[in-house]
């Protein structure tokens, strides 16, 4: 009997403690790929979130922010489980969601149903936020980036005709190619030839011969760097002297290693530039990252920091830990300075400048920051 009373007392104390703590802290969930196939993405995002917390602090609206990290093991089923656990067991008011589209698509419907806002740092597929009220993202979407590339090609590079060589094995590449074509032709340009390759291909001479034969002003190659480097190499070897434009898949140091002088002059669209911040906080982030890790920061971490900043800003403006109010404040985000630029949220997707970079002397040099309407 005595033991029972003591237990009861303890339980009472514990419950009281939890209730007391809940008044003072805001719990935010982080549902990330910490292990598994795309663990590198999740880890970089987590690193970015923690770094930005060192800069802006971990308090908002007079309350302390507590992050609850759950590993989704790069698996959609685990991502769904993690979401449910964060909401039901951990009592979070909002979630920073999985890195990749597949896992985000598993987590999003749960948040939508339970009316808890979720924001992904890097899931680019348009489907993620489509028709949902509580789902957000910090990165731009494939249509957005494709349209930005088309605008840059037509207006700045004065290209009237273009060819596309995209990787049919990657949804990301196919989507960018299609949205580029749509936007480029809407502006009055013409896509004269469309060719495809497959992830892992090393020989692109057949496709490039067909493209060069059609004599386009520009070749759009929205692929990953392994293919881009070889495509540039072979295009130049086959005598192509026009412009080559690519997307953020080009962002890797190996590009210069493999492409050598063939990638000189290559343009690509990117989420941000790690050498020069577009905003004050972006510069602070870059400086602190360099100081801590001794190298340039990566895009995933920066977008993770963006997701945290957007969320924090919304909580502050909502002045409440009511999830619905936070959601409304997130949707109202306007001209907020985050790490990768100035961002406005519309239908869950960010509107922010697309950075265009060019390869000069084995380095990426920022050409311009492009706003798309």
């Amino acid at each position, binding site marked *: 009997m005595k033991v029972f009373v003591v237990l009861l007392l303890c339980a009472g104390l514990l419950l009281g403690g939890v209730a007391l703590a809940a008044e003072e802290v805001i719990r935010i969930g982080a549902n990330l790929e910490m292990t598994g196939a795309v663990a590198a993405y999740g880890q970089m995002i987590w690193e970015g979130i923690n770094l930005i917390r060192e800069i802006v602090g971990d308090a908002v609206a007079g309350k302390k922010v507590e992050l609850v990290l759950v590993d989704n093991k790069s698996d959609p089923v685990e991502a769904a489980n993690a979401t449910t656990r964060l909401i039901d067991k951990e009592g979070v008011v909002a979630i920073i969601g999985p890195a990749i589209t597949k896992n985000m698509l598993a987590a999003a419907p749960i948040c939508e149903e339970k009316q808890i806002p979720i924001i992904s740092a890097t899931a680019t597929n348009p489907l993620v936020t489509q028709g949902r009220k509580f789902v957000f993202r910090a990165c731009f979407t494939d249509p957005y980036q494709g349209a930005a590339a088309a605008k840059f090609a037509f207006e700045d590079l004065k290209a009237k005709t273009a060819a596309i060589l995209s990787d049919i094995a990657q949804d990301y590449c196919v989507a960018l190619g299609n949205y580029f074509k749509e936007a480029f032709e809407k502006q009055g340009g013409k896509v004269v030839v*469309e060719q495809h390759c*497959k992830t892992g291909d090393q020989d692109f001479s057949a*496709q490039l011969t067909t493209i060069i034969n059609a004599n386009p002003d520009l070749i759009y190659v929205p692929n990953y760097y392994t293919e881009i480097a070889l495509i540039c190499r072979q295009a130049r070897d086959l005598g192509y002297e026009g412009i080559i434009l690519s997307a953020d898949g080009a962002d890797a140091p190996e590009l210069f290693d493999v492409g050598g002088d063939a990638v000189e002059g290559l343009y690509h669209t990117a989420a941000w530039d790690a050498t020069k911040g577009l905003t004050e906080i972006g510069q602070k982030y870059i400086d602190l990252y360099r100081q801590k890790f001794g190298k340039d920061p990566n895009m995933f971490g920066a977008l993770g920091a963006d997701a945290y900043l957007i969320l924090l800003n919304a909580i502050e403006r909502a002045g409440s830990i009511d999830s619905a109010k936070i959601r409304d404040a997130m949707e109202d985000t306007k001209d907020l300075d985050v790490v990768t630029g100035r961002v406005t949220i519309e239908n869950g997707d960010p509107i922010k400048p697309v950075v265009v970079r060019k390869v000069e002397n084995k380095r990426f040099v920022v050409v311009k920051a492009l706003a798309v309407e």
Partner: protein
Amino acid sequence: MQWTALFQQFMNGVSVGSLYALLAIGYTLVYGILGLINFAHSDVFMLGTYFAFFMIGVFLLPWWLSVLIGVALCSLVGMSIERVAYRPLRNAPRISALITAVGVSFFIENLGLVTVGARPKGFPRPDLMKNVYTILGARIQGVTFWVPVISVLILLALFYIVYRTKIGMAMRAVSRDMETTRLMGVDVDRVILYTFALGSALAGVGGVLWACKYPQINPLMGIFPGWKAFTAAVVGGIGNVVGAMLGGFIIGLAEILIVAFFPGLTGYRDAFVFTILIIFLLVKPGGLMGEATKEKV
């Protein structure tokens, strides 16, 4: 399609095909003597590029010396594989050796992934190989000239070794009847070891030339060229050296021309090549130049 474009596509095909041909000779050589498909051949091909890469990048040796050392190291690797993985199974059923070959292949690939990492590296090439020449409006890389030239030289050297030297005579004897040859006092193990050294050196040369054309090396780079070259060897008639070359060109041209004429089928490029393999196995299992042999089952 314009004539220049057609000619360019033809040259593209010859260019890829000659690399397959070189690699196919290695498969055919080992098969001819041992009746074993050495699946690790394509990984020795990959190792050749890495050896040369480190010789150039780390030891700062001149290009030609690096390649020679790389090729020599490939021979050593080939001999070690034979000694460690295949010799103990010499008298085991053939399927055991085949499974071991696949195992060795996986072992080398994964060892590569662990030691040098999966991210690709750029391969330094001499100007001789990367210079581009314009002929009849077609742009042709130095490597396209050199691969057929090197392949023919290797072919001549092979013929010399096989038909004019003592070890060549021993190789032919072993391929005909291993046990009887052994009874005649020939050191069969040594003959087989030499065969592996020769075949692996060819893989090394093939790897370096491949990297000259596609200057991006990674531990898994050998897999697809290996399969294609194996297909080429079967199409040409496995065991027949001239057939392997012929098969290489056929496969190279076929995969370029399907992309050139049917751009919509680009994704089926590899599938197309392996369809050729299946058709050959069904219709003419001996390959173009192979002899139809009856095997006792």
